[in-house]
């Protein structure tokens, strides 16, 4: 049995220790908002926060996540940055198919938590690892700026 702290709750899971955290989150915790896209850290669909940092959960064996605070898309709205990002995403009508958006939102929320007023270059380097096949990149940029503006006004739209 492995103990995990996900979204503020402690869970016991029966998974082999080398199972990627992604699949434990999706199949054992049934938190399916975190997506599988490539399995090799090339697309960012599986991005979660581990100790507040955007991390590709497909690359983290579950044993290495023990004792760490993990947050997924299902709970990111409880943080100020996460909520601002979600609201900005709605306002800019960012998602199309939506499959990659959990990963983008997690990446953007981590970026804004660390850097509340990111430049274009900051957005590029923080988000370039997240792929979107529907091509929502322009709206993602706009939404990150909008979320930053919201945070600057105390998190209000």
């Amino acid at each position, binding site marked *: 049995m492995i103990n995990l702290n996900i979204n503020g709750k402690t869970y016991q899971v029966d*998974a*082999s220790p*080398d*199972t*990627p955290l992604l*699949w434990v989150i*999706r*199949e*054992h915790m*049934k*938190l*399916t*908002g*975190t*997506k*599988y*896209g*490539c*399995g*090799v850290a*090339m*697309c960012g*669909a599986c991005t979660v926060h581990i100790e507040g940092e955007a991390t590709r959960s497909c690359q983290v064996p579950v044993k290495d996540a023990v004792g760490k605070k993990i947050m*997924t*898309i*299902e709970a990111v*709205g409880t943080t100020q940055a996460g909520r601002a*990002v*979600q609201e900005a*995403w*709605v306002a800019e*009508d*960012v*998602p*199309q*198919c*939506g*499959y*990659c*958006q*959990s990963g983008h*939102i997690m990446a953007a929320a981590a970026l804004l938590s660390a850097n509340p007023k990111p430049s274009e270059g900051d*957005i*590029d380097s923080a*988000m*370039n690892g*997240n*792929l*979107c*096949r*529907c*091509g*929502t*990149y*322009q*709206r*993602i*940029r706009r939404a990150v700026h909008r979320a930053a503006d919201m945070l600057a006004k105390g998190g209000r739209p």
Partner: protein
Amino acid sequence: MNGIANISRRDFLKTGALIGGGLVLGVSLPSSALSAKKGAKAESASLNAFVRVGADDTVTIIVNHSEMGQGVYTSLPMLVNEELEADWAKVRFEAAPVDPAYNHTVFGSQTTGGSSSVWSEYDRLRQMGAAARMMLIAAAAKQWKVDPGSCRVENGKVISSSGKSLTYGKLAKKAAAMQVPKDVKLKDPSQYTIIGKPMHRLDTPEKVNGAAKFGIDVLLPGMLTAVIARPPIFGAKVSSLKDEKAKAAAGVKAVAQVPSGVAVVAKDFWSAVKGRELLEIVWDEGPLATLSTPGLRKQYSDLASTPGLTAKKEGDVDSAMGKAAQRISAEYEVPYLAHATMEPMNCTVDLKKDSCDIWTGTQMQTGDRKAAADAAGLKPEQVRIHTMYLGGGFGRRANPANDFVKEAVHVAMAAKAPVKVIWTREDDTRGGYYRPMWYDRIAAGLDEQGNPVAWKHTIVGQSILVGTPFERMMVKDGIDGTSIEGAADLPYAVPNVLVDLHSPKTGVPVLWWRSVGHSHTGFVVETFLDDLAHVAGRDPYEYRKRLLEGNSRHLGVLNLVAEKAGWGGPLPSGRGRGIAVHASFGSYIAQVAEVSVNPSGAIRVHKVVCAVDCGKYVNPEIIRAQMESGIVFGLSAALHSAITFKDGRVEQSNFYDYQILRLMEMPEVEVHIVESTEKSGGIGEPGVPPIAPAVANAVFALTGKRIRKLPMTPEVVMSAQKA
């Protein structure tokens, strides 16, 4: 977005295949619509197959097209609600079950593709909304004992002339018992309050918090997960299999041969993947073991210099070519392409003795249901398809071969438990059903003034439709309409035209890929036209304009894009501009790309200005999003992506060697929509074809190098010749 071929309404009317396009208000409700929805909070009543009204005043629109990013869960409810006038804040959507009531109004089966969702439902859904409204009014009028004609509706309420009002929720049950109107009067477009407005998407809230359920997210009690070892070469068969180690691996429940390979069924995904690595399979490699991209190129280029089947013939090309003042010719090559949906293929099946439930993201419910029933030995009516969100479709999830659904049913038969088959990214990339590789040879003759007098275009590439149920309708005299679309309908004024086609069989499974044939003909025709302008010594925009005289919609977008992009105006140093215009799926798109090229040949696209005329439109914000999307999809193919073969094997496997556009490369995209009262055209696909030629033409304008091969990698750019 898409992919079913560009079946024009005109073709269907001609061939008499129009099915269910008329008024279908009286259509009987599918049984599933009548049964109470599981988990529904409040009582509800179905007023017709598309409208269900809850006692809590929510109005659920049943959507018969799959949501794959193109916005149908918003645009189709907008059509209904324009006439229904429910409170938009209380409008919900739900994926339709499989039932003839939900067939595509033109294709005759439940199918999403061909950029057709809005135009094909434009009339029916407004009629459905209007009929439901009339039934609600009739119910209120009956209760109030007044003339229905004296009542009106507003924001989810029926209101009498004396000011009494009842909400739709309060009237729902009684309204369902009212007679279905025989005919309805629809609003004049001048009265529209929803159509044409940039409404926010209804599906966004659940796509930003992880709640949206895609096929891959389905979890059933007792469900197992399977991966499949598919042949490394298309057509290879299992010669021998040793599966003892795999069967003994932790979590593995079963190993079974299925028609598509060897399935490893396990308690979870990771156990299945680890188990698969332990399989020892010897493959009988079959006839494609020597397939290679250079070999195909040779075969195709040889074919391109011989006459193919005539797809279009006007005038006398040979004679005109002989008399031309100048002649130019060129050869083009574009590769196989994978759809690379972000959600890899997957399908979940719960198979019982006399029923089968399937959860998947599909663009082709009717066909998939039939294939599943055949595989399971059931009747189609015993199979239910639960359409989930599609994590991208682009045509891959509309497969006439029904591959990922049929296969999952076979796995379920072996697993004897509910099972989800997941394709890894590598499985998905190597799994076939690609956009065909194409090779084109094209020649033109110009007169003394530089105007084209002869145009000869030979196309070489696999047919998508031969051997599918679509062959009967869309392959005529051996010519697959999707192979020549965008080429045989050349819009430019050239008196002598010959387009011919070779459709070699290679054994590589091919399929429609967002914009289908246009994805290559747009590139060939629009870069070659640019060549002609250059040879004629004319500006590429002015040259097109002259040759498009009389084609008002082409001209409309061409002129608009030129104006908005400041065509001919100053550019930052080191930048070039290129223009292209292409019509597909009933819409007209022109784009101007602004690019730079670094010393090692890497192209950077800085800005794209896009003009679109898609006729009457429903949601301009979705139009803009689809143009942005098509441009990015097209840029991935223009700059990065290719599927190639060596020793019969696909050389790519994941996003590191099958690359798509990343955020850092995203150009600024500006979209301008032409106001129009013409019939609606498609929007999911038409944004794709013009971008590759616009970029190639910009590279030419900047460097003098003419690129005739995709993707335009630095190597291709460096080796391209100056014209």
